[in-house]
């Protein structure tokens, strides 16, 4: 399936362990998430309904919350709005069966930070949760991103690798900027399409792969070490060494 020329980098390399709160009324789905997060090296607590979830979120110190939108007793959006009004800024990923443009906008307006439509791939959810992790998202303010010998200056819009200037098209620059901001993290194709192109649909052809392979050609050709890795079944990761 992969169009990449480089070999897969094997197992996904995970970031520092996170404390995740999962508020999901489907017992089976919640258990699966808890197990999968644990396998990825994180700790996940599960709440089976909105009220319990709200109490846990209000009391505990979580890095990221995954909240199902439709739940008994208290729906997900109300939980998020309640937490936000109490000054809780923990990043929230909304899970929902509703996937229209309007549903997404409503979810994000209620205070969610990301929106994922069911059914989803766990690799997609994991990648998004890791990107949301508040302890890792301090990079927003930096003007120069560095990954190994690759350097991107956000102000002068210039890219260098090992002091050699690399010319990129505007979109390629934004693509690399996003990958470097989340260096060391898995970035999925839909995340790229959403954040670099601002589209939320599935293109019929995997256009993102072609864009990435083109960018890879520019930042890896002539250098001995690969830096932009393909993570099988998940997406891409920018990582030195």
């Amino acid at each position, binding site marked *: 399936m992969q169009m990449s020329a480089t070999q897969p980098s094997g197992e996904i390399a995970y970031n520092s362990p996170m404390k995740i709160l999962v508020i999901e009324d489907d017992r089976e789905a919640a258990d699966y998430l808890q197990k999968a997060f644990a396998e990825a090296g994180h700790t996940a607590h599960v709440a089976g309904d909105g009220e319990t979830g709200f109490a846990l979120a209000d009391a505990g110190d979580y890095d990221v919350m995954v909240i199902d939108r439709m739940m008994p007793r208290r729906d997900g959006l109300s939980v998020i709005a309640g937490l936000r009004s109490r000054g809780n800024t923990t990043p929230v990923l909304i899970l929902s069966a509703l996937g229209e*443009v309007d549903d997404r906008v409503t979810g994000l307006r209620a205070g969610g930070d990301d929106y994922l439509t069911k059914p989803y791939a766990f690799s997609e959810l994991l990648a998004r949760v890791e990107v949301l992790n508040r302890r890792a998202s301090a990079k927003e303010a930096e003007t120069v991103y560095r990954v190994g010998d690759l350097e991107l200056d956000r102000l002068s819009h210039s890219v260098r690798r090992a002091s050699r200037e690399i010319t990129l098209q505007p979109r390629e620059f934004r693509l690399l900027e996003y990958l470097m901001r989340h260096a060391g993290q898995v970035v999925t194709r839909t995340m790229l399409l959403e954040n670099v192109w601002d*589209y939320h649909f599935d293109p*019929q052809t995997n*256009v993102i792969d*072609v864009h990435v392979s083109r960018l890879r050609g520019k930042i890896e050709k002539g250098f001995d070490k690969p830096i932009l890795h393909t993570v099988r079944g998940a997406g891409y990761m920018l990582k030195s060494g």
Partner: protein
Amino acid sequence: MALSVPAIMKTTAARLSALYFLLFALCAVALVFYMTSLSARMLTAQTQETINDEVLGLARAYQRGGLPILVRVVEQRSRQPGANLYLIADANGQILTGNVQSLEPGVLENEGWTSSPFSYQRFGEGELERLRNLPAEQGTTTQSEQNDAQAQGEKGHNAIALVLRLPNQMIMLVGRDLGEPERFRAVIRRALMLALGMMGLGGLLIWFFVGRAALKRIDSVSEASRRIMGGDLSGRLPVTGVGDEFDRLSENLNAMLARIAALNEGLKQVSDNIAHDLKTPLTRLRNRAEATLSGKQKPTDYRQALEGTIAESDQLIKTFNAILMISRLEAGYSSENTNRVDLAEAVRDVVELYEPVAEEAGVSLEADAREAVSVNGNRELIGQALSNIVDNAIKYSTGANAQPAVRVTLERAGADVRLSVADNGHGIPDDGDRARATERFVRLEKSRSQPGSGLGLSLAKAVMTFHNGRLELLPGNPGLSVVMSFPAREDH
């Protein structure tokens, strides 16, 4: 129990009849009222004129011979039968002569016309009363006239009069009985009652014939619709061929039924297609899992099978999402997220998104969208529709002799904005095939070898419907040209 309207009043015909009856009755009452007041005024004027003439005659008598002659003339005239009243009284109001026995007090105090009719008693009234109580001896008066007179007799007769003061402080009254105008009013009142009665009867007849005829037609329509509701979707409402409003109603309802039947047929077709397009990959999925479980496999085989399973289910989810989206768009889903969309920017975005894919496939992808054109819409939906079309164009531009090329053009055409994607591939030469290409799950023979769900163009078409636009497939020269037509924004 609540007050219930009689069942018959629940029909429109009965309600309309009642309404018309009320309306006409009001008109008749107003007309009669106007006529009586007009004729009463005329009669009063006539009465006054008669009195004036009488006074003029008496004045001449007075001039001729003074008071004695006047009194004699009055006495003489009083004896004559008729409606005229005469009275001469002294300064204290004591009646001296005339044919009036008594009258309402205060009438003689003001000189000139009496302000309103007053009641009085004539000489010989008692005797007359007695005579009238003997029916056998009634004279020329009819029964009703007598009744009227009787009714008046109880409180005296009514009259209007002119009161004059004679030079020697005596008072003279010349007047006329009002019996005649009052009889006239009674006649008119009777006529009014009769007219109202006739109208009531007429309304009832109209309701009976017209209303019931309409009711019968409506009942037959109700009957036919109940039959259709019962499941016989091929049933139609009766059309008599007269071409009246009932026929028009039935024709329109029949057209609606035909449309519903067509949609129903379409739905059935779609569910058949969905069943096919979802069942085929689901079966494949199941068979793969079964084949992997049976027999000895190496761990790498399991891995490969599972990866294949995931890829297959992802494709299924995509197809499912597309079907849902098309259904919602076609069902008239309304979005709050429509605003000004810069089409030139949308073209640039999509072309830029597909440019590397086109290059890799050896297709030249060009955009001609310099003019800034905006439409009302949803950027996301337009982007998705356009990328589906561009995706198709890139896939199908190859194969013909020429260097494959796809050209996206944005232009204005009158009140429309046209966004066309033209390729120079083999195109779809057959008109019928071209028309079918936007139907759900239709994959023309030549495209079977290409990956795809058969929903790309259907989705684009649904998106255009959502934007009040059209999606057309036109034969290119060579190749195919897919045209998205949007209504332009008002502010241009």
